[in-house]
C-alpha cells in the first residue's frame, strides 16, 4: 500500500517523540507510549489546520510537552533519591584488560575525560554528539566484558 506523506512523517518522528516523552517521564516507557499515542492522535485530529509542508517538529514537541505535563499533573512522579554510585577500584585489574581497546578507542577515552565540552570533542572527532556517547557506552561494555572474563580465569 502506498504510504501518504503524512504517514511517512509520522513513522519517522514517532520514535523521537517516544524517546523524548520517556526522558520527560523519567524512563517510564509505558507512560511514554500513552503520551506519544495521544500526541499523534492529536496530530491526526488537527491535521487540517497544520501546514505539513513546513517542519512539523516544533508542533510535535510542543504538543508532547503539553501532554506530558497533563500526565504528570494527574500522576506526579515520585521523588527519587539517587544513591551516589561508587567508582570502580582498578588496583587489582590486570593491564591486559585494557588491551581489548583499540588505539582509537583509548584516544577517545582520553579526549572524553580531558575536556568538559563534549560537543567540541565530537566535532574534533568528526562524529555527532550522540555517536560520542554511544561509542563510549560501547567501550564501557567492552571493558566490562573483559573485566568479567579476567575474573573468571
Amino acid at each position: 500500500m502506498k504510504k501518504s506523506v503524512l504517514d511517512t512523517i509520522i513513522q519517522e518522528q514517532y520514535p523521537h517523540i517516544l524517546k523524548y516523552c520517556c526522558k520527560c517521564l523519567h524512563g517510564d516507557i509505558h507512560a511514554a507510549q500513552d503520551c506519544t499515542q495521544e500526541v499523534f492522535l492529536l496530530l491526526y485530529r488537527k491535521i487540517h489546520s497544520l501546514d505539513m509542508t513546513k517542519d512539523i517538529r516544533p508542533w510535535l514537541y510542543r504538543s508532547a510537552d503539553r501532554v506530558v505535563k497533563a500526565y504528570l499533573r494527574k500522576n506526579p512522579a515520585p521523588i527519587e533519591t539517587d544513591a551516589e554510585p561508587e567508582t570502580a577500584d582498578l588496583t587489582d585489574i590486570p593491564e591486559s584488560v585494557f588491551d581489548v581497546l583499540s588505539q582509537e578507542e583509548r584516544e577517545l577515552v582520553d579526549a572524553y575525560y580531558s575536556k568538559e565540552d563534549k560537543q567540541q570533542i565530537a566535532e574534533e572527532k568528526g562524529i555527532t554528539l550522540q555517536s560520542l556517547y554511544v561509542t563510549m557506552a560501547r567501550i564501557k561494555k567492552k571493558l566490562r566484558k573483559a573485566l568479567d572474563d579476567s575474573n573468571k580465569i
Partner: protein
Amino acid sequence: MKENYAHLISDRFEQDSLREVEALLDAELAKPEKERNYDKIEELTDAYACLAANEEQLEKAAEQGWADLQEKHPRAGKTRPAVRMRLMLTAGIAAVLLFAANAFTVSALDMSLYSVIVKISNEGFSVDFTPDPLELETSPDDPYGIRTACAEHGIEVEAPTYIPEGFVLVNMDYSDLTSWDSICFWFQKGDRTISFGYRKYVYNDGTTAQIPCDDFNLTEVDINGKPGIVSKEDGQYTLVYMDDMLETIVATTHLDYDECDKIVNSLK
C-alpha cells in the same frame, strides 16, 4: 589515566552522562522555538535513550505504537482526500453560478443582481446581514455539534442542549497556543448573539477569569456541581466557570435573561 577508566567502568559514567545530555537537551529546548536545532534535539534524545539502556525497548515500543496508531485512526496508512481541491472546486462552481445569475438579471431586468438587492431593500424589504450558517456534526445528546467539534481538538466540554429557535452558528474559531487551546462558537439571530467559549489551559499559571462588568451585579450559580459566576447588565449576560483547567464562558447580547438561564442550565 586509570581514574578515567575507573569512572567509565562504574555506574557513574551513565549517571553523569545522562545528566550532561539532559542539560544539553534542556538548554536547546529553553531556546525560542525558531532558534531550536531539532536535529540536535533528536540526537540528544537518542543519546539519552542509549545511556538509559532502554534503547531496544523503546525501538520495539515505537514499532508497536505505530501499529496501534494505524489501527486506532482510520486515516493512518491511507491517502487523505484532497480537501483543499474540493473546497476550491466548490468555490469555483459558486462563483460561476453567481456570475451566471448576474448575467441573467442583467439581460432580463436590465440591471445587475447586486443592484436588484438594493432596489428591493429600498422598497421596504429588510436586508439580512447574517452570514451563511456553518454546519457541525450533531447527535441527539449534542444537538448543536459543539461537543464533537471540541473533541476533534482534544478538548472535552459541557455543551448546551438548548439554544432558542432561530439562532444559527455563524462563526467558529480555534486557537492552539503554547499555554492554552481555545475554541469559540458564535450563534446569531438578527442583532442577538450567543457565544460559547472554551479555553483549556496547559498549566495553572495563576491567571484568573476576567468578568467584564461595570458594577457588581454578579450572582453565583451551580453548573453541574461546579461554581460559576453570572453577570447580567445592559442587555448582556455572561457566565464564567472553571473545571479542571478548562474555562467555559457563555455570553449573550440582547437576549432575555430567562432564556439565558435556560441555555446555561442546559449545559451538559
